[in-house]
């Protein structure tokens, strides 16, 4: 022990003794609190009181102490009844392989307590088939740095383009509505019977997950050709999935860069015969996107994605292009291949153009201006049976499809904050026919990534 430490300890001991033995009246009184800040904040509160009026009036506290004593003494009586009260609801759907879907869904519990149980049962009128399943998910740890475990099983109709499923997006209700009303449905479907489990760990800014699934995948045929307007089906057939039981492991990571509004994600799926799977493939997809402000008037949203499938080129593991989130002049998923590259840059206005031009309109329907430029390609064996497109790591130059669009956008705020109903005037760029196309669609901003939409 150094001399300085000894001296310090001695001084502290003397100080403690002096304080301890000092007569009580001699003790220093705590200084009066500085009330000037309280008065300053009180002045601001007064203006708040004046603005909010009755809402700012404190609640009457009469009887609250006795209510608290009763509540503490009778905890079961006042416990929330809703914690284990199940939620029920109907569920409806429509597509050309299932036809009308009628059923119900339920949920009970909370993911942070014993877990949340969800289930759904639906009858598909087209093939006369019961579909449904259930799942349990549980989360623990504090928010932002938590673990999540989810186990699901059952029989469901899924889409061959798996990006939306891996992005955890809900059922495509608008796609069902378009199919029901006008027969407009470019989705390709398959059936999955089996179970899956996923363990995720979030530790901002990174989220990683590992998943396993054991599912029998089977092709589906079109069973329903009608629509409410008696229009024919926009896509009269359904691309068949390869039949077989798949055992697939998935590793997934997504990141939000700490200081920049940049988002990234990567997914690796592997299905091996040595794991008991019917298929042998490895599938990798990575995407990067950003959200920059152009003042308060617009947002600049660039995004890129790249994917490769090696091994067997089964249609349910292929990459697809087309639709409002990628290349709008092509119908959804109408181009396919074992590899994908796409870049897109959106400009999305934030101001209500109708208000800017002083055009009277309901407040519920502000319209924004926007536009985008996109270029993408798929290459490798074609799941639709066409000739294989040249390219290994990168596509041939002639495979790139490019377009620009001007858009009128309505952002309703539901079901996600950046969900957009957009009317695009799309014009192809580059060689080939330059037919301008008008397209009405629903999408969300930065749809090539899951990260932004989930926040």
């Amino acid at each position, binding site marked *: 022990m150094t001399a300085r430490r000894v001296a310090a300890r001695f001084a502290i001991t003397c100080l403690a003794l002096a304080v301890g033995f000092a007569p009580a009246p001699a003790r220093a009184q705590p200084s009066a609190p*500085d*009330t*000037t*800040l309280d008065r*300053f*904040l009180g002045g*601001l*509160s007064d203006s*708040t009181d004046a*603005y*909010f*009026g*009755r*809402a*700012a009036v*404190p*609640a009457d506290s009469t*009887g*609250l102490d006795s*209510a*608290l004593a009763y*509540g503490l003494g009778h*905890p*079961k009586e*006042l*416990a*929330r*009844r*809703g914690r284990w009260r199940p939620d029920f609801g109907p569920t409806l759907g429509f597509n050309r392989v299932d036809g009308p879907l009628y059923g119900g869904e339920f949920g009970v519990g*909370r993911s*942070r*307590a014993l877990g949340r149980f969800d289930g759904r049962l639906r009858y598909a009128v087209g093939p006369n088939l019961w579909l449904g399943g259930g799942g349990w998910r549980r989360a623990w740890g*504090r*928010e932002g740095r938590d673990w999540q475990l989810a186990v699901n099983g059952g029989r469901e109709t899924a889409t061959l383009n798996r990006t939306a499923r891996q992005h955890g997006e809900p059922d495509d209700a608008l796609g069902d509505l378009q199919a029901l009303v006008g027969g407009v449905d470019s989705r390709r479907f398959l059936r999955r019977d089996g179970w899956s489990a996923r363990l995720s760990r979030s530790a901002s*800014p990174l989220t990683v997950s590992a998943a396993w699934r054991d599912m029998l995948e089977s092709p589906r045929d079109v069973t329903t050709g009608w629509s409410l307007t008696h229009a024919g089906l926009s896509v009269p057939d359904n691309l068949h999935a390869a039949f077989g039981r798949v055992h697939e492991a998935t590793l997934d990571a997504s990141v*939000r*860069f*700490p*200081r920049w*509004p940049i988002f990234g994600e990567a997914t690796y799926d592997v299905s091996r015969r040595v794991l008991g799977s019917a298929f042998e493939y490895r599938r990798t997809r990575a995407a990067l996107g950003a*959200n*920059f*402000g152009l003042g*308060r008037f*617009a947002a*600049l*949203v660039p995004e890129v994605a790249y994917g490769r499938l090696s091994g067997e080129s089964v249609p349910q593991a292929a990459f697809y292009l087309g639709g409002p989130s990628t290349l709008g002049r092509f119908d959804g998923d109408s181009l396919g291949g074992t590899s994908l590259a796409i870049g897109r840059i959106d400009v999305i206005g*934030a101001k209500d153009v109708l208000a800017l031009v002083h055009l009277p309109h*309901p*407040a*519920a*329907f*502000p319209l924004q201006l926007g536009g985008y430029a996109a270029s993408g390609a798929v290459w490798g064996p074609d799941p639709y049976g066409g000739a294989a497109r040249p390219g290994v790591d990168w596509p041939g130059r002639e495979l790139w499809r490019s377009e620009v669009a001007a858009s009128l956008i309505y*952002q*309703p*705020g*539901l079901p996600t*904050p*950046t969900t957009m109903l957009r009317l695009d005037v799309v014009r192809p760029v580059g060689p080939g026919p330059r037919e301008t196309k008008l397209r009405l669609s629903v999408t969300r*901003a930065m749809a090539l990534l899951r990260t932004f939409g989930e926040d």
Partner: protein
Amino acid sequence: MPLPFLSLLAAWLAAAAPSTSGPTLAREDTMHTEVSEVLVNAPRVTLDEILDRVARGEARRDSMMRDQSFRTSLRMVIKSASANPQLFLETISQVYKKRPDKVRSVLLRKWRMKIGKKDKGDKDDDDMQLDFGPGMGEEVVNFAFQPSARRDFKYRIVGRDLVGSHLVYRIAFTPRSPLDPTTPSGLVWVDTNEFVIVRQEVGFERSPVPLFLKGIPRMVIERTRVGDYWVLKRMLMRVQTTVPIPKIGSSFDIAVSFDDYKINQGLSDSLFTAAGATRGSESSR
């Protein structure tokens, strides 16, 4: 003392009093002095440094609290923009929190206006209650000042107020991108003695859900000091809807207030084993 003298004195005082109320000021102009100029070259604290200190101050505030109990009330006032606002619902609860993940709330009062003859009012209406998480970080106050929020917001110093021995910074924050309409902008008051946020006003550039909401013209979040800690005092918000809601109107206020705080009182674990106690984070409803 003779009465005429008193009358005379009163008349003289009345005549001598200035026409306006308040003290009479006199200026001393017979003495002069000069102080030589002193060049102060200490660097002014940068905005980045202030933001770092606010993040640290808020983290420190959070880490100092081991447990807390408070009483909270949720009130909704309808027809708030009219001349006759009405209390629509009121819920009061006593809340206990303890690190790391314990929370319990005891319902003290529940009341809701009946809408129509068949409506049972507050009976069987569980959605009226607030759920609380165990955290004491008060993210509703400091969400824009957490280190990870720097990528989402731009900041600027709007002003400084010298209040007694406190220097209060007013810092405005706005979203870096207008893409997400649910990201608010706002103004916070930061007491630089502890670098904690003492008040916040939040607004939205455009309606977050235009289909239903015309806008949220004003939202105020206030803190108050309880002992050594700054804690939530109340949150008030005015909501305007695009179409009038039957019986409610097109404007209503929501107020959540917090009082009767007790902090670090050493809450027993047994308090959290009863029915109604939960573990882990839960969102507010």
